[in-house]
């Protein structure tokens, strides 16, 4: 009996006008969006490759150890075609100094695109499913029960020995089959398009990630469909069911996500007292190091004919870039004395001793500041982002967006992985300095005897987080969506079973 019902439902949906609309709309939009996103990805990839080559060239032309400040770039994520997330919004190029533990806000963007292009909201494949397909899912649902009640066929069906549970289950499964069909077709078309361009190469794990995105999409659509089914069972008239479900859709999908985040953004302050104490501690560390350097110079004064010889003179490079308040860091100094006058040669041992004394101190202070700065910035920014994310979890559309971002690795944590890798790389770089005894070598500041040898310099390699990390990040939202599904189904069932037809 159940199979008969299910077959009837599926056939009834398949011949409807709305099914045709759903399929055509989905495929058309998916094709256009894929086209735009692939183009965008290829542009970003080209920008990344140019930047990487320029950086390598610059690195190879480094002549002294103190000038060794490699620049690293974050490659664009190919899965950003599905959900762009933060992949393009956050910094993608970063210089590594031994005097600074890098964080997300030190990064910059290589400006391949138009400065004003952010004015147009970016759309991706998930956007299509989140908005368009969910709206169409409601159209499948609103008259499922109320409509049959109005036309009287429900009574007819129930006069047979059919359990109400199987009617509901057949309705749900029938409609979901008809919704999943265009969804899977969209995924296949998008994938064919992407793979056929040749510029985007997916690994085996990427296909599993895409499968995860597909699974999440199905669960999301099912949740939205169940919202419609719930109203259809609850409301006495089809028109009421339609209005209520459309209204709930507008609130949950369109209004609430924007409203909650903008409220958090405007009502909470990014600054609090803990920031100030961190700032104070950082300033203290900075002062100590500067003072130590000055003291050393005072105690080990070298007199020459022209006055005082200062190892800090010439070839200073002051670099201070940062984001707002926690921008304080150890001043980065690089030296390249490419020609040393024979008369000055006698000072060189003093200069070596100076750097030997000061550079490790500055390096240690940088580590210390990093330990203060990282949690302070986390406090400053991540906390608010987390609050916003938690609030967003009241909307299934936002949950869906967050979960697919996590699968694609374009969420905040996915981008943060890159900076984690950069921090690790900086550590290996510092170890490299120690191995080479760079701080106490002449080549730290002078290249008159030839440039440094960079053959064994460790290379920066960045790999996206593995599949299980992505999955575990997507899991909380996925579970919540599943829970919502179960709750809605049980609720609808309870209402439907007790109803008088």
């Amino acid at each position, binding site marked *: 009996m159940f199979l008969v019902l299910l077959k009837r439902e599926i056939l009834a949906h398949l011949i409807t006008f709305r099914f045709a609309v759903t399929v055509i709309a989905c495929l058309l939009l998916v094709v256009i969006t894929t086209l735009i996103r692939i183009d965008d990805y290829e542009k970003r990839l080209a920008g990344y490759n140019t930047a990487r080559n320029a950086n390598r060239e610059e690195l190879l032309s480094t002549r002294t150890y103190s000038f060794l400040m490699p620049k690293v770039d974050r490659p664009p994520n190919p899965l950003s075609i599905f959900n762009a997330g933060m992949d393009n919004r956050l910094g993608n190029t970063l210089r590594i100094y031994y005097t600074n533990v890098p964080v997300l806000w030190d990064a910059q963007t290589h*400006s391949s695109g138009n400065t004003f292009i952010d004015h147009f909201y970016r759309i991706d494949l998930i956007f299509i499913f989140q908005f368009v397909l969910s709206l169409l899912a409601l159209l499948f649902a609103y008259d499922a029960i109320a409509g049959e009640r109005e036309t009287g066929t429900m009574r007819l069906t129930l006069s047979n020995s059919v359990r109400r549970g199987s009617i509901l289950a057949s309705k749900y499964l029938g409609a979901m089959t008809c919704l999943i069909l265009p969804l899977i077709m969209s995924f296949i078309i998008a994938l064919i398009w992407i793979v056929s361009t040749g510029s985007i190469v997916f690994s085996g794990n990427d296909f599993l990630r895409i499968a995860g995105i597909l699974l999440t999409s199905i669960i999301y659509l099912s949740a939205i469909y169940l919202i419609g089914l719930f109203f259809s069972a609850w409301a006495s008239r089809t028109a009421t069911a339609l209005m209520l479900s459309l209204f709930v859709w507008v609130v949950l999908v369109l209004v609430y996500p924007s409203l909650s985040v903008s409220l958090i953004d405007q009502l909470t302050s990014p600054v609090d007292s803990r920031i100030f104490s961190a700032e104070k501690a950082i300033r203290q560390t900075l002062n100590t190091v500067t003072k130590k350097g000055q003291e050393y110079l005072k105690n080990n004064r070298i007199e020459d004919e022209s006055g005082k010889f200062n190892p800090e003179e010439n070839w200073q490079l002051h670099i201070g870039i940062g984001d707002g308040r926690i921008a304080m860091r150890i001043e980065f100094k690089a030296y390249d004395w490419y020609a040393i006058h024979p008369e000055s040669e006698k000072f060189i041992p003093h200069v070596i001793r100076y750097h030997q004394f000061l550079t490790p101190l500055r390096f240690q202070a940088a580590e210390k500041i990093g330990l203060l700065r990282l949690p302070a910035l986390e406090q400053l920014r991540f906390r608010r982002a987390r609050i916003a994310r938690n609030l967003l979890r009241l909307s299934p559309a936002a949950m869906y967006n967050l979960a697919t971002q996590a699968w694609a690795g374009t969420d905040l944590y996915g981008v943060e992985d890159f900076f984690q890798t950069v921090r690790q790389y900086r550590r290996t770089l510092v170890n490299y300095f120690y191995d080479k005894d760079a701080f106490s070598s002449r080549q730290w500041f002078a290249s008159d005897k030839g440039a440094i040898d960079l053959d064994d310099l460790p290379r920066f390699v960045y790999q996206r987080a593995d599949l299980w990390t992505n999955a575990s990040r997507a899991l909380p939202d996925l579970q919540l969506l599943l829970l919502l599904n179960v709750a809605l189904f049980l609720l609808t069932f309870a209402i439907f079973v007790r109803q008088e037809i």
Partner: protein
Amino acid sequence: MIFHIVKRELYDHLSSLRFALTTLLILILMIVNAVTYLGEYKQRIGQYRKRTRDSQDRLKARCDSLYHLVLRGPGNLQKKPSPLSFCTDGGEKLLFGEVEGSTAGRTRFWSNRDASSEFTEIWDLKYPPNYDLLFISETIPRERSIMPEYIKIDWGFVTAVLLSFTGILFTFDAISGEQERGTLRLMLANSISRNTVICGKFLSAFFTIAIPVLIGVIVSTSIIYLSEAVQFKGSHWMRLGFIVCVALIYTSIFIFLGLLVSSRVKESSTSLAILLLIWTVWVVLMPSALGSLGNRLQSRPTPKEFMAQVQDSREDLQTRYFARIKEPPRQESPATIATALGAEYVNKDAELRDRLRAGYLFAELRQIQIARSLTRISPAAVVQYAFEGLAGTGLPRHLDFISQTRQYAKQFRQFLIDTDRSDPDSPHAVGIPEGTSQKPVNFDAVPKFEDQHRFGTDLNAAIIDLLLLIMFLLVLFVSTFLSFLRMEIG
């Protein structure tokens, strides 16, 4: 007769669930918008005042000598926030609130066999601020927020997305529903013309939506007005009036669209499916999707090419002038040939930088303008742009601000030359220390920049969008009428 029809329909609508839900939603959004706007505007205007004050203080400090002013320029010029930003934000966060008129102070060395000298760059206008020509490819100064992306809920959003949706909700079954029930046939059996029926349907839907809109507008403006945080002038009320009119015209477009589709199909559910599809594509997708195509249609020099161009032209200018300078500039009056040439070089260089920068900026903006023109296929984008124009926010306002700063820069330069001319001891070669008056300048006489919100300019930017909206309306109006007149009622 039409009055009766409107009355009947209006009663129907006003007692319906959809009316209650719409009113509730619009009202809540408008109030939330007003409240958050108050906090934000206070912060923005405070920041504007503080920055203007700081900038003036720094300008005052530079008045100790005319050469200082010549070298370092007027400082940062601030964009005044619009008090009507609650109507539409226009992506203000993505635009830069100031233009920097200052110098990086780089020097160029000139030397020949027995003498050498250096020429320091004088100020030019930098937009975006801190956007150094030498590092243009490295950085984009941009606030990097890790908050989830969101669309700002303002009048623009409520109009473009919600009112269009409501327009469809109230009309999708207006004709097909009556036809299904058979009441349409009944009605037309009386001596009512079809024109009257369609007019009645339109007017009733229009009034039903206009009521919550007007309530929302009145409530949210009174919240803002009564808080006394914002002073509205007469022109602001006029702008608000225009904005409400635009919103209602836009809503009418979708009412007609709903009636059109409803009169073409037999079943209400089909009508709704078609309308929702049109709505998602036309309102939600098109404004964003088409914008991304702007980059493809118009090319612009890459930052790298641009930097190379800047470097080449500046080198070229330097070589030409430095070849003609035979001795270092001297501080004597009247100016020697070398002094005059040096000053001319420094000024020409500033002019060149300014021209190149402006060229690059306008190439970028042209791409955006093309993207915006493309998105005008969607009335949702058109209404957004009309709002921006009328509220004095967004890109048109930003362009006006930039052109005002450019005008001011001219005025400022003229002031420097005039002041130098009035000093009898100066060699009158403004641009280098040897040729410029070193006397202090009266701060009060220095022209100050104040960003003006000009209604005429703003309206000009909005007029094309207003006309487009009216065109959309007329096309849909005519097609709805024709469709209904030719409809067969079974």
